């Protein structure tokens, strides 16, 4: 029963008069007074006549989401992903897949916000207020993730950025978060201690890397220390094509 009533609220054109209790009288009157142009066939316009294209992308720039509601939503996401999984790896893969499209979107949003506001949130990777550059090298990409992306998501930078010391795996990089927000309210049962729900964040990182053209596999690992019991390391393994290109670009002197 809830669905039809919500529909009628969204489609204002004829029904807006029938809702006297809502306090937004000035908003609902506009469509009545002016002879509005006929809505395009088949297009549903929200009651305040604002499509997503009329909304400003920077309005919620400094707004913060309630942590409680996020924790609740995220717990539901984990529960949802946990249905009919075959094991911990499968569960982490599903969480990763949930994060991936988010990473692609955040990338566009991040760049849009930095181009329009000219406040240099991307300053670590570009100079002053000129439009930020797309990352071409691995290091610029990692700085983008470590700094601006983390600030967009969690309001602070990540805690560490390291390159693999092993000569066998020069394509592996690590980003460390001492206390990931997504794990704050999650207690993992003892028999599943391999699980790290920050696999969702790993998915976001993977989306960002892929979007920029850096094919990568990203996974989240528990590495607790005494001071930071929920310390998480995100392991980024770049693909061979990326490493090859990296060499070519290095020779060409492109930063």
């Amino acid at each position, binding site marked *: 029963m809830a669905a039809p009533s919500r529909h009628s609220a969204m489609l204002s054109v004829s029904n807006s008069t029938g809702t006297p209790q809502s306090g937004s009288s000035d908003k609902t009157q506009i469509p009545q007074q002016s002879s509005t142009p006929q809505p*395009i066939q088949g*297009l549903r316009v929200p009651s305040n006549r604002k*499509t*997503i*294209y009329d*909304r400003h*992308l920077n309005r919620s720039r400094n707004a913060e989401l309630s942590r409680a509601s996020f924790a609740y939503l995220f717990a539901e996401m984990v529960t949802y992903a946990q249905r009919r999984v075959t094991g911990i790896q499968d569960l982490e893969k599903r969480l990763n897949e949930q994060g991936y*499209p988010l990473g*692609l*979107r955040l*990338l*566009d*949003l*991040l*760049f*849009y916000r930095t*181009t*329009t506001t000219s406040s240099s949130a991307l300053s670590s990777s570009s100079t002053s207020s000129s*439009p930020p*550059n*797309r*990352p*071409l090298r691995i290091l610029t990409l990692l700085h983008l993730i470590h700094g601006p992306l983390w600030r967009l998501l969690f309001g602070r930078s990540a805690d560490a950025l390291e390159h693999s010391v092993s000569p066998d795996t020069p394509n592996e990089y690590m980003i460390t978060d001492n206390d990931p927000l997504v794990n704050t309210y999650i207690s993992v049962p003892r028999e599943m201690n391999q699980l790290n729900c920050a696999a969702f964040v790993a998915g976001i990182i993977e989306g960002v890397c892929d*979007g*920029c*053209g850096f094919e990568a596999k990203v996974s989240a690992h528990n590495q607790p220390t005494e001071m930071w019991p929920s310390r998480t390391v995100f392991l980024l393994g770049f693909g061979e094509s990326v490493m090859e*290109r990296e060499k070519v*670009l290095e020779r*060409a002197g*492109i930063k």
Partner: protein
Amino acid sequence: MSYYFTILSPTDTPIFNIAFGTSKGGGDGIARFRFPDTAQYMNQFIIHSSLDILEEAQWTNGGMYLKHIDTYPPAAAYISAFLTPSGARFLLLHQPPLVPNPASSSGLGSSSLLGSSGNTVRGSSSTIATNPTGPQTEEAVRQFMNEVYESYVKTAMSPFYKQGMEICSPVFRTRVTAAGKKWL
């Protein structure tokens, strides 16, 4: 000046395209390419053939707007490109009006209209139509691209939109048309 604008997804799927003409200098915003009506696919052909060059350019230039990247002399077509950070490509093909006018009245679909608009465009000498690679044009295209980018980000942020899906929102189309009217 006639324009053909395409957005390609990172996996080379065309997700949006539109053809329009200039609105500056008395133009009426209708595209008049110098191909016969039966050969409109030429636009797509030319624009997609510039993808190779774009893929080279995208790793040497970190900017989002890559300016004018390719020319197709047989059709006097110029192609400008804009890359979103998430890998979508905006490609704009522009074809300036023919300078010696007589050819225009030969068998093309809308010959009389073409003649008149050609005259008015040439009348105002400093419009972007006169110099497709000049700094003025680059700037106008950049503004156009940025405005489309804003709308594109809004589309991409919609939870119902998945990367690579065709953008069929009429509002998006109006936005692009408006940006074209404003800048080109």
